[in-house]
């Protein structure tokens, strides 16, 4: 390219300046992804001498075996519960806190604590709380069976309900659930902890979004006839929070797909694979069982999920919610 070089005499310097960043990006981002992608077509395991090319075998397994079907369904259940609830709660909490005249910082700190705390440590605290016999949660629930007023309220017997058909009534008779040991409850319990941990972060992001809305817009809405809080929310708050919402949704989605610590600490994917989420599957296959090939295949599927979400977010930001 003698022509280009003569037109840009400093091209050499330019390339030299860009090079460190490019090299780093290739070495620590592109190469590992590429290696994972290649490994996903092999039956490689760490330490083995040879590399067996198995083609799409790993992917066929991932999309057909029932274990992996459970993996997808538990991951999607987690995402489908945690994302809307934690985003909704985050928005609600930020609106409430934003309307306070004092005490804002206190609430911010309290709700943000789970975000700052190490999730693994918090998982241990949750494990104690959720313990079927000595845990505070089942303790409190069964203590309620003794209190007549609460019992009749919670079982619905004050309304004429049959005690044994209500969840609480059955709990009192047969004992309350093993939150983490029952396949019908485990994923929901993990999701609950996920919400508890994630919504403080969303709240802080929404608070930042709220404080950037000009008060003049609210005044203008008020004068234009938006009398109720709901109509001001519809006219000003919600649209102005559009960019924040897209960001919060994306971050929460990706973080929910990445759920791992609580599963590893509390259930190890069980019972009956009911909490076998993608990250945990990668960890179990590739690290614990040393089946790097299948682990890499799940990783590639996972990466394409995240990629898809990011692309949708880019598209939304460009199209719908960006106000120049």
């Amino acid at each position, binding site marked *: 390219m003698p022509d280009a070089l003569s037109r840009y005499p400093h091209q050499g310097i330019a390339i030299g300046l860009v090079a460190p960043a490019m090299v780093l990006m290739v070495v620590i981002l592109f190469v590992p992804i590429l290696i994972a992608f290649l490994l996903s077509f092999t039956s490689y395991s760490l330490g083995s001498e040879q590399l067996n090319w198995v083609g799409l075998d790993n992917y066929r397994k991932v999309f057909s075996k029932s274990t992996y079907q459970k993996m997808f369904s538990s991951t999607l259940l987690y995402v489908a519960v945690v994302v809307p609830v934690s985003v909704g709660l985050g928005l609600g909490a930020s609106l409430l806190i934003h309307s306070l005249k004092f005490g804002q910082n206190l609430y911010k700190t309290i709700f943000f604590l789970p975000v700052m705390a190490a999730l693994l440590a918090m998982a241990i605290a949750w494990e104690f709380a959720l313990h079927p016999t000595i845990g505070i949660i089942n303790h409190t629930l069964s203590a309620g069976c003794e209190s007549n007023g609460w019992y009749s309220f919670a079982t619905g017997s004050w309304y004429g309900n049959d005690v044994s058909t209500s969840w609480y009534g059955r709990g009192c008779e047969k004992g309350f659930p093993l939150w983490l040991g029952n396949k019908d409850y485990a994923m929901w319990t993990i999701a609950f902890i996920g919400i508890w941990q994630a919504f403080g972060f969303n709240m802080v992001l929404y608070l930042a979004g709220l404080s950037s809305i*000009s008060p*003049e*817009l609210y*005044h*203008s*809405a*008020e*004068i*234009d*006839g*938006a*009398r109720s809080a709901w*109509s001001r929310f*519809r*006219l*000003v708050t919600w*649209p*102005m929070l*559009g960019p924040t919402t897209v960001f919060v949704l994306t971050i929460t989605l990706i973080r929910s797909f990445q759920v791992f610590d609580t599963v590893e600490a509390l259930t190890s994917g069980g019972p009956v694979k009911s909490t076998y989420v993608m990250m945990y599957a990668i960890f179990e296959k590739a690290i614990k069982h040393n089946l790097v090939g299948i682990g890499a295949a799940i990783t590639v599927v996972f990466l394409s999920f995240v990629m898809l979400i990011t692309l949708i977010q880019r598209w939304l930001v460009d199209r719908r*919610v960006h*106000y*120049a």
Partner: protein
Amino acid sequence: MASISLRNIGKSFGQTNVINRLGLDIADGEFLTLVGPSGCGKSTLLRIIAGLETPTEGDVLIDGKASIKLRPSERNLAMVFQSYALYPHLSVYDNIAVPMRMRQFTRWQRIPFVRRLVKGTRSVSQDIDEKVKAVSEKLGLSPLLNRKPGELSGGQKQRVALGRAIVRDPVAFLFDEPLSNLDAKLRVHMRSEIIDLQRKLASTFVYVTHDQAEAMTMSDRIAVMMQGDLIQVGTPEDIYLNPQDLRVAEFIGSPKINVLSAMTNQFGQVCLNETPVRFRIADESSTEISIAVRPESLFVCNPSPAAIPGQIKHIEYMGDQAYLYVDIEKQSQRIIIKVLPTQLAGYEIGSAIHVGFDAKDALLFDQDGQRIYATPSPRSVVNA
């Protein structure tokens, strides 16, 4: 269309008084400007009229009706904000339509798509559509209806804000420094557009500005505010020629009025630099007073005992006029004389000149800045 009366309005934030109990009557169809330096409480007063701020005491009467307890939306006023406060996610059309939809649609009709299912929506939306189109036609916004505010220039945004205000026939219009975000040329142009609009609508306009030129050129009456007090209310001519307070005299007029410090002696004679000027005041005691003279009322004259000697420090040539900046002995403030450019010949920086003024053009103020009146002697001209 309505008159607005302020009764004993006071506003304080904690210990700080922003507005000290003031009263003001704004007639139906009048263009009244609230003018004053920043922080004088004029914007707060406007927001009290709008209902966005609750006064600590007093009442606002709109068309004779006590309105202090009414929500802003119930007062049926329109307001244009300095930042325009357009809804950035809505098109120009929707921005203008918002006040109509908020008032004419029911709760269900305000939700997009759902509104199609509600009976009677079509006739209401047609009515709204006609109004929005008529208003945008009037303001020259028709080609821009589908744009978002982010794609508009400052002047166009200003017009959309005006459109949103006039679309629903409010009883009065409130403007909070609407032109201060525009460049100088556009500002002068929008001034005349707003005046035209007011003549067409024949509605009550309350206009807040810190720009005395806007106040002078646009208003039927000007209300000058300083430090939370309403100092003087009057027509532009009245405010300019007959300021009742030194601060008003200094605030209105560009360049600023010249203030000379003077003494009165025991005979009531006014002495400028120990030389008696030929007018007197009724109060026969020796006090300090201020003589204020507009730059256009000062002139360069021949030396005489009564003329004030000074030295030119700076000359400003403006094309159609020129300003001489003159230092006068024993006076702390440099004075400004407005002259015709043709009169500049022979003067340069450093020239010693004599300055005179006609006694009828001099405004006298006491130590507290209150206006006092001279009793001119028959030969009342200061210059020889």
